């Protein structure tokens, strides 16, 4: 269930995974981009962590607004802006009383508005969209999240740096897709999602 508690856990687990996998995300970004995705995400994550530590009274919507501004202001790079925008839209959606599915759909809208990526263009959208579908169909599992992340290996990049050498990129997981996998693993582990 989505409560203040589980929202906080969701964001904290996401932060933890980003901390643990900074190097790995950098490495993924090295093959297809400029090698900074892990470092970028860590910056946003640590700023948010400090904010969460101080916070005692925010509701879920406020927590996501906080996350949104943290990632927008501190991450640097494309993905940080997209996550930030997603979080802001999710915050808005929470305020309007939407359920998890509604919130994820709003987040996706934010991402698409700023990044204009479509499915199969080797971005975090390739995880966000099918995960949202799995939530709709009540069949989301850790395994399925992982499959969605791995599916990006076969796609050709059309956005960002990777687009330039897209033909040479088959076989590599997209770094943004990988970090997005962590976000949804954190969501599952936090108990936000319940069939």
């Amino acid at each position, binding site marked *: 269930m989505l409560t203040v508690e589980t929202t906080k856990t969701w964001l904290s687990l996401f932060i933890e995974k980003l901390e643990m996998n900074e190097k790995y995300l950098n490495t993924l970004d090295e093959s297809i981009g400029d090698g900074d995705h892990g470092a970028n995400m860590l910056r946003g994550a640590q700023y948010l962590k400090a904010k969460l530590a101080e916070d005692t009274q925010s509701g879920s919507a406020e927590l996501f607004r906080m996350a949104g501004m943290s990632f*927008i*202001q501190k991450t*640097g*790079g*494309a993905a940080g*802006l997209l996550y*930030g925008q997603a979080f802001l839209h999710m915050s808005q959606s929470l305020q309007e009383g939407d359920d998890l599915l509604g919130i994820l759909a709003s987040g996706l809208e934010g991402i698409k508005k700023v*990044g204009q990526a479509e499915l199969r263009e080797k971005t975090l959208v390739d995880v966000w969209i099918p995960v949202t579908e799995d939530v709709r169909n009540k069949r989301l599992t850790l395994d399925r999240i992982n499959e969605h992340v791995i599916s990006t290996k076969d796609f050709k990049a059309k956005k960002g740096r990777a687009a330039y050498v897209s033909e040479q990129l088959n076989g590599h997981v997209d770094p943004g897709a990988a970090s997005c996998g962590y976000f949804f693993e954190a969501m599952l582990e936090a108990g936000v999602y319940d069939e």
Partner: protein
Amino acid sequence: MMSEQYGILLVSHVTELADGLARLLKQVAQDITVKAVGGAVDGGIGTSFDKVMAALEEMEEPDVLAFYDLGSAKMNLKLVSEMTDKKLIICDAAFVEGAYLVAVLLQADTPFEKIREQLQELYVK
């Protein structure tokens, strides 16, 4: 006067690139506001939402034509455009060539519609 309505905002991943381009533009557009912003928060290669937002807000002109080098600079501009009262016109034109063209044309008091038309030919993104 055109120059009081329109300003130019340059967003790059590298500070010197934005600054250098601004210098080039100012030479042919002395009366036009050209604001340059570049680099990540720490001055490294990247972009910063806060810097872009601050640069835009410092401009006096209500309408701002914005040029950028790479995609994530554009994303910053899109985010900023949602949060500002100004009219931000994000131009998908060649960074240097597009901004230069607009600078020269604004300086020469060219009507906006003509500028838009000429700029179209430099769209590469």
